[in-house]
């Protein structure tokens, strides 16, 4: 871990010993509740400085109020997302698109991609999503009365939806699950190796589709025009890599945290099983209570924000898990109320970078819960096991062993 000195312009009284990486409950914890752990910041000021709040050990300002996070994320001119996180880990410098582009370039690519994952398009994708969920759950139901939900269901489900999206057959599912695992959860050797493999795969797929176009996502991308020209190889790669990594762990974590909640709250579980029409609304509340993403922006100029002297180049953190527990925005934010109305949560971010996959993600989560509850009887967390939660850039849950014996 790199220890960073607090920059000189940060007033010492604004520094807090808090971080989504190192605070209590953020490291891998059996039976942990990292979302409840971060909610404690609402007892403090609206903005403070955290000296260690990124994977590579940098400090960030932390914005705690939902309304202020909206202000930051809606103002992409002042708060930029140009960071090249993925490629810099490979010693390269190309943006993931559209995530690491700022307006106006961002809007050009966003408009190109929006129709591919629009609410209308998701209606067309839905039957395949349901079919995948049912196949996986039937296999689980047939093989016993317990399973590791993340390994056996959530992760293969999201990876196979990605394959469908790219028009790839399922027989390579295990290979892809392996890459994704190494990339998202591997050590310092496995992670860059997996990243290279994925880049090579995306490049190869693009080359193939250039030679032999078919009716799929990648063919659309390589044939598309922006500002009267075709996309460069680097742009195609930037889009392909982002779509690969953006929808795997995020959706899997949402399903995992959701099922863990239901396993521990049998009444809610029974209610949703008996009245599945409630699942759409319940899924929103589970996304509110257990979101997975911490967004980070870079200040493009000096700005005083709610009394904090943010200077050009400073990192600014807008964590959905913090916004979603803001008492100014949500009544009883630490209570899970599956019938909560007007639930304007921040799980998919705010502003121009609002999750492009949000409509698909919502359907995946709802369908996953619907099919699970329809096919698996009352389930609990297996005796003598403990799901392991973790904080960080992306909150997650593992070793979630459910039992319905």
């Amino acid at each position: 871990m790199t220890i960073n000195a607090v920059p000189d312009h940060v007033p010492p009284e604004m520094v807090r010993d808090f971080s989504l990486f190192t605070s209590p409950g953020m490291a891998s914890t059996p039976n942990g509740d990292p979302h409840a752990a971060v909610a404690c910041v609402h007892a403090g000021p609206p903005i403070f400085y955290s000296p260690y709040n990124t994977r590579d050990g940098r400090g960030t300002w932390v914005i705690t109020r939902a309304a202020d996070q909206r202000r930051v994320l809606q103002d992409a001119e002042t708060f930029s997302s140009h960071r090249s996180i993925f490629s810099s880990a490979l010693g390269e410098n190309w943006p993931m698109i559209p995530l690491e582009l700022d307006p106006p370039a961002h809007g050009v690519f966003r408009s190109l991609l929006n129709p591919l994952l629009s609410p209308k398009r998701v209606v067309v994708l839905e039957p395949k999503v349901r079919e995948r969920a049912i196949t996986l759950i039937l296999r689980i139901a047939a093989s016993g009365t317990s399973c590791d939900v993340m390994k056996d269901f959530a992760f293969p489900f999201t990876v196979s939806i990605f394959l469908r999206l790219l028009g790839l057959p399922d027989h390579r599912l295990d290979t892809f699950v392996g890459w994704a695992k190494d990339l998202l959860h591997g050590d310092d050797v496995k992670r860059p190796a997996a990243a290279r493999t994925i880049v090579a795969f995306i490049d190869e797929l693009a080359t193939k589709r250039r030679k032999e176009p078919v009716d799929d996502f990648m063919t659309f991308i390589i044939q598309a025009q922006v500002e009267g020209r075709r996309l460069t190889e680097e742009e195609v790669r930037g889009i392909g890599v982002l779509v690969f990594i953006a929808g795997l762990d995020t959706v899997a974590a949402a399903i995992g945290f959701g099922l863990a909640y239901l396993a521990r709250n049998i009444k809610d579980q029974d209610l949703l099983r008996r009245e599945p029409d409630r699942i759409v609304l319940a899924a929103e509340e589970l996304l509110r209570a257990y979101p997975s993403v911490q967004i980070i922006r870079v200040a493009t100029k000096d700005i005083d924000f709610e009394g904090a002297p943010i200077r050009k180049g400073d990192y600014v953190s807008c964590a959905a898990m913090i916004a979603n527990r803001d008492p100014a925005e949500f009544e009883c934010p630490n209570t899970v109320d599956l019938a909560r109305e007007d639930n304007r949560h921040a799980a998919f971010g705010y502003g121009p970078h609002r999750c492009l996959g949000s409509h698909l993600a919502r359907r995946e989560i709802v369908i996953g819960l619907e099919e699970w509850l329809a096919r698996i009887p009352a389930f609990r967390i297996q005796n003598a096991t403990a799901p392991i939660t973790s904080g960080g850039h992306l909150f997650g849950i593992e070793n979630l062993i459910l039992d319905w014996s």
Partner: protein
Amino acid sequence: MRIIVHKTKCQGHARCSAQAPDVFKLDDEGYILPGDIEVAEGQQLLASRGARSCPERALELDPTPAARVVPDAIEPRVWRA
């Protein structure tokens, strides 16, 4: 009832149309169509719920609906303090 649409704030969450698809129409990218919305009788409850569901605060319930509908000739200014 009338809903003021701040089109530039819309980021395509599509929460409004999930609540009230007949009131809130989206374009092919999934963003709200421009122009304020005059809500029909009978859809007001759904419409206000839809407006309240927008994470970006792009939809505003017009606070003075009568003032916009009722012409000045019928309701002279002097009546309103």
